[in-house]
């Protein structure tokens, strides 16, 4: 359902509600009746199928009214904490590892009863083993979020041009590739990945890569400034198509990026280049996206619908398909088995490619120096200020 349809339904429902209230003599919304449709504020990638959320709705057996959202933290905070998000939406998606804490601390989302989600039993063990992975879906010890995709951000490279498979971020600072390197124009993933490299290669002592102290942020940025001044970087990219175009056109030979950028760039470039996604021995930034139930959604009795949809997000059908279409890591076990059991959906060659993709992901996840994304690091101001200095250099 698109925005127009969403608004039309909202209008018609509102009109019907007002008419009904006038006839019955009471105000709708005060009763605790269960919601009939789930109003979602979701990222466009939280679905199977290129067009809309109809496949998701069909699998969940839930009517969905979806408004698409960006992944910007400020947008979610403004809408859900100080805006009218809780009036408008029952469920929303966002980054784990920070946003669930921010929204839960402001009471914009509610804790979940995961016993209502049968597929929670299949969730990746890391979410129940404590530590940072488990924290990305919890606040104050309670589960507030259901993960639907995750990944380890790494480096894409043109294998045909390089002639070897880089296994270290260090190749980005090799003088022979001066002017042919791009970084993501976002201080979160870029500084975290570079901190992984500097720590992993023993160049800078960093206690917690995911939550650096001001001196550590400074050291990472000074390192980048040094190479920026040498002309090592062609650009810092922003926006999916921008990232794809840089690699596909041969403007750069390597770039830190999301995995789908590498996949699409490789498709786009045909036989000219071979864009691959590497595994870096020093570590990567890990991140996930989660789906959450809003306070307003619970008030409107949307729990049951939310749990049905959350169950689909943790199904192997969703995991296998999101691995295939976007290249993101599934959040549940049993994906290979699902693909083997459904040869009509995943033919032999596709299965082979996806199984290799999944194995590569597992290899990236296994790197010791990885760090989970932290949307709101303790010294956020230092990150911002030093990023501005890097831009000005």
């Amino acid at each position: 359902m698109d925005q127009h349809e969403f608004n039309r339904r909202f209008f018609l429902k509102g009109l019907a509600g007002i008419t009904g209230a006038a006839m019955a003599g009471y105000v709708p919304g005060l009763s605790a009746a269960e919601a009939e449709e789930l109003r979602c504020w979701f990222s466009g990638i939280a679905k199977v199928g290129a067009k809309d959320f109809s496949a998701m709705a069909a699998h969940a057996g839930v009517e969905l009214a979806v408004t698409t959202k960006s992944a910007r933290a400020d947008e979610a905070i403004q809408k859900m904490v100080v805006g009218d998000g809780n009036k408008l939406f029952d469920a929303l998606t966002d980054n784990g590892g920070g946003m669930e804490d921010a929204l839960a601390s402001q009471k914009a989302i509610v804790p979940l009863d995961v016993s209502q989600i049968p597929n929670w039993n299949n969730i990746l063990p890391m979410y129940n083993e404590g530590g940072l992975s488990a924290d990305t879906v919890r606040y104050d010890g309670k589960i507030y979020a259901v993960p639907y995709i995750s990944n380890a951000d790494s480096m894409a490279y043109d294998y045909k041009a390089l002639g070897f498979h880089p296994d270290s971020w260090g190749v980005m600072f090799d003088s022979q590739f001066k002017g042919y390197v791009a970084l993501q124009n976002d201080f979160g993933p870029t500084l975290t990945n570079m901190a992984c490299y500097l720590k992993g290669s023993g160049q800078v002592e960093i206690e917690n890569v995911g939550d650096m102290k001001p001196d550590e942020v400074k050291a990472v940025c000074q390192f980048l400034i040094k190479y920026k001044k040498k002309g090592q970087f062609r650009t810092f990219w922003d926006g999916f198509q921008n990232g794809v175009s840089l690699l596909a056109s041969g403007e750069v030979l390597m770039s830190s990026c999301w995995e789908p950028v590498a996949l699409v760039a490789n498709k786009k470039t045909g036989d000219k280049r071979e864009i691959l996604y590497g595994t870096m021995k020093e570590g990567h930034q890990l991140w996930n996206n989660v789906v959450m139930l809003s306070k307003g959604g619970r008030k409107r009795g949307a729990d049951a619908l939310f749990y049905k949809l959350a169950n689909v997000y943790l199904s192997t059908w969703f995991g296998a398909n999101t691995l295939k279409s976007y290249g993101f890591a599934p959040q549940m076990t049993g994906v290979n088995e699902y693909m083997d059991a459904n040869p009509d959906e995943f033919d032999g060659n596709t299965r082979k490619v996806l199984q290799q993709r999944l194995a590569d992901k597992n290899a990236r996840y296994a790197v010791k120096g990885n760090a989970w994304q932290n949307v709101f690091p303790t010294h956020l101001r230092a990150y911002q200020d030093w990023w501005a200095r890097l831009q000005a250099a």
Partner: protein
Amino acid sequence: MAVSHAKHGQPLMGGSRNITASPDRWRWLTGEDGLQKWVFYIPALFMVFFFIIPLALTMVWSVFERTRFWMEPGFTLFAYETFFTSARAENYLFSMIHSAWAVAISFVIGFPIAVFVRRRIPQIAQHRVILLFILPFMISELVRVFALRPVLGRHGLINNLLIQLGIIDEPISVILFTPVGVVIGDVLSFLPFMVFAGFLAMEAVQKYVFEVCDDLGASALRTFRDVIIPLAAPGIFAGGVFIFVNSLGGALVPTILGGPGAVNAGMIVNQAIVAVDFPLAMAISTIMIATMILLLYIGHRVFDLTKILEPIQ
């Protein structure tokens, strides 16, 4: 059927129905004390609600205390201190310099086009020719700017052509992902502003002025420098302001054509918002507004901007 040209207050047609066309019925709207006179206050109300109040709120919020995810009432100049003591002020200054370059180059290219159209194209066709400059605006700016990448890139049209012609051996990389790339993008995006404003400004230069210059034997360059430019200066300044503001605030060009970490003032604000630092974003916005007001004030003092409307008057 006879048509009755009824006088005011008289029935329009015969019969028992008393249908009148009395102006009294509409006096509440069109009369001297009617609502009509308030219509003229609508633009003022629009300005108050959509310009003055947001502007005032921007300034007020810029001195609020930042909380973890929002802000709370208070008075602190911390956001301004952060701006001026961090590299943001430096980035802002660079952005102003790049914008000034975009204005200067747009003037050099765009104003002669306006003069040419005004002087050489038959009057009946002038507006149609000028309308041609609107055509690029029919295409999304994102598409227009992105389309420059395959032109300016290492393996782009310009480099391939120059290499094939044997003029260069290695691709020129300075025209993309550098401040030069940003200025090129700004000029190509905003050049029509200079052409329109220049064309309008040329309305103030009467045809006989050119004839007098010719009669006095002034060269084309001297006529342009000493006669046309001073007379059209307010319009040129207005066109320059449009370009400067767009170049300073629009994120698209530096994002797509800029080098590592390229930013302009608009992007600095955006980055503060993304980091949920609303007082800082408001402070930078306030500084941008102050810059614009100062610029307009200087422009008005030097060029008397009311002259822009003289051709219309």
